[in-house]
C-alpha cells in the first residue's frame, strides 16, 4: 500500500518522501519522538506541498490528486493492488525489490491510466484543449492519452473538433 502510494504520488508530481511509513511499538516512545521530529524537519526542508524540487504546482496537484483519489477508487487498480498483496502474502516474499517491482509493473500502470482518464475529464470541463496542451497538462505522452481519449469520444462523453477536444453537451 505504502509503496503504491509512493509511486503514485511521484506519478502525480509529488515528492514521494512526503509520505512516511514508520514503525514504533507501544514501548518505544523515544523512538517515536525521534521519528516524528526527524520527519517534521524533513517536511520543513521540502517546504509547502508543490514547492519541492520536481513537484507540480499546487493547482495542478489539487486537480491531479482529485483524479488520483477517483483512480484509487476504481475497480481495476484495486484488483491489481489486492492481487499483488495476495500473491506476496502467499509467497511470503516481502522484500523491497519484490514489492517495488510488483507495484511498478502491475498497479501503477492501472492507477495512472485511471488518473489520466479522470484528469482529462476535469481539464476538459474547464474548456477545450488540443492534444499538445493535454499532453503537457497531464504529464503524459500523446500516445498514452490517445487511447482513453478515443474511448471517451466513442462513448460520446467527449467531442473532437479541429483537433480540439471538449466535453460533449449532454
Amino acid at each position, binding site marked *: 500500500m505504502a509503496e*503504491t502510494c509512493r509511486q*503514485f504520488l511521484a506519478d502525480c508530481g509529488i515528492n514521494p518522501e512526503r509520505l512516511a*511509513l514508520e514503525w*514504533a511499538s507501544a514501548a518505544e516512545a523515544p523512538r517515536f519522538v525521534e521519528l*516524528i521530529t526527524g*520527519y517534521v524537519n524533513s517536511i520543513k526542508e521540502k517546504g509547502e*506541498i508543490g514547492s519541492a524540487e520536481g513537484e507540480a504546482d499546487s493547482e495542478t496537484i489539487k486537480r491531479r490528486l*482529485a483524479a488520483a483519489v477517483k483512480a484509487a477508487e476504481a475497480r481495476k487498480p484495486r484488483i491489481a493492488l489486492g492481487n499483488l498483496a495476495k500473491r506476496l502474502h502467499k509467497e511470503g516474499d516481502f522484500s523491497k525489490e519484490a514489492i517495488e517491482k510488483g507495484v511498478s509493473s502491475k498497479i501503477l500502470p492501472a492507477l495512472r491510466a485511471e488518473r489520466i482518464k479522470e484528469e482529462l475529464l476535469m481539464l476538459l470541463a474547464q474548456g477545450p484543449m488540443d492534444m499538445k496542451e493535454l499532453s503537457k497538462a497531464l504529464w503524459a505522452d500523446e500516445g498514452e492519452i490517445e487511447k482513453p481519449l478515443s474511448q471517451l469520444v466513442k462513448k460520446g462523453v467527449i467531442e473532437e473538433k479541429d483537433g480540439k477536444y471538449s466535453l460533449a453537451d449532454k
Partner: protein
Amino acid sequence: MAQQNVVKKESEMAQEGFEPRILGFFCHWCCYAAADSAGVSRYQYPPNVRVIRVMCTGRIDARFILEAFRCGADGVFTGG
C-alpha cells in the same frame, strides 16, 4: 562564496518560518500507544501532526493518503 552563503541563509529562514501541516495515521496498538507513552514521559516534539487513530495500519486505504494530500497536507505520516 559570500553571496552563496547569503542565499543559503535566506532559504533557511524561509524554512524556519514554515510550519507544515501533517496528517498522521497511527495504529491503535503501536504508534498511537507510543505517542501516548511519549506524552506520559513528557517528551517534546514539534506540534505539526494531527492524528487519525486506526486499529491497524492495514486499514489505511490509498484513497486516504491521496485525499489527505489533496486537502492540503504537506506530509502524511503513517505509523505502525
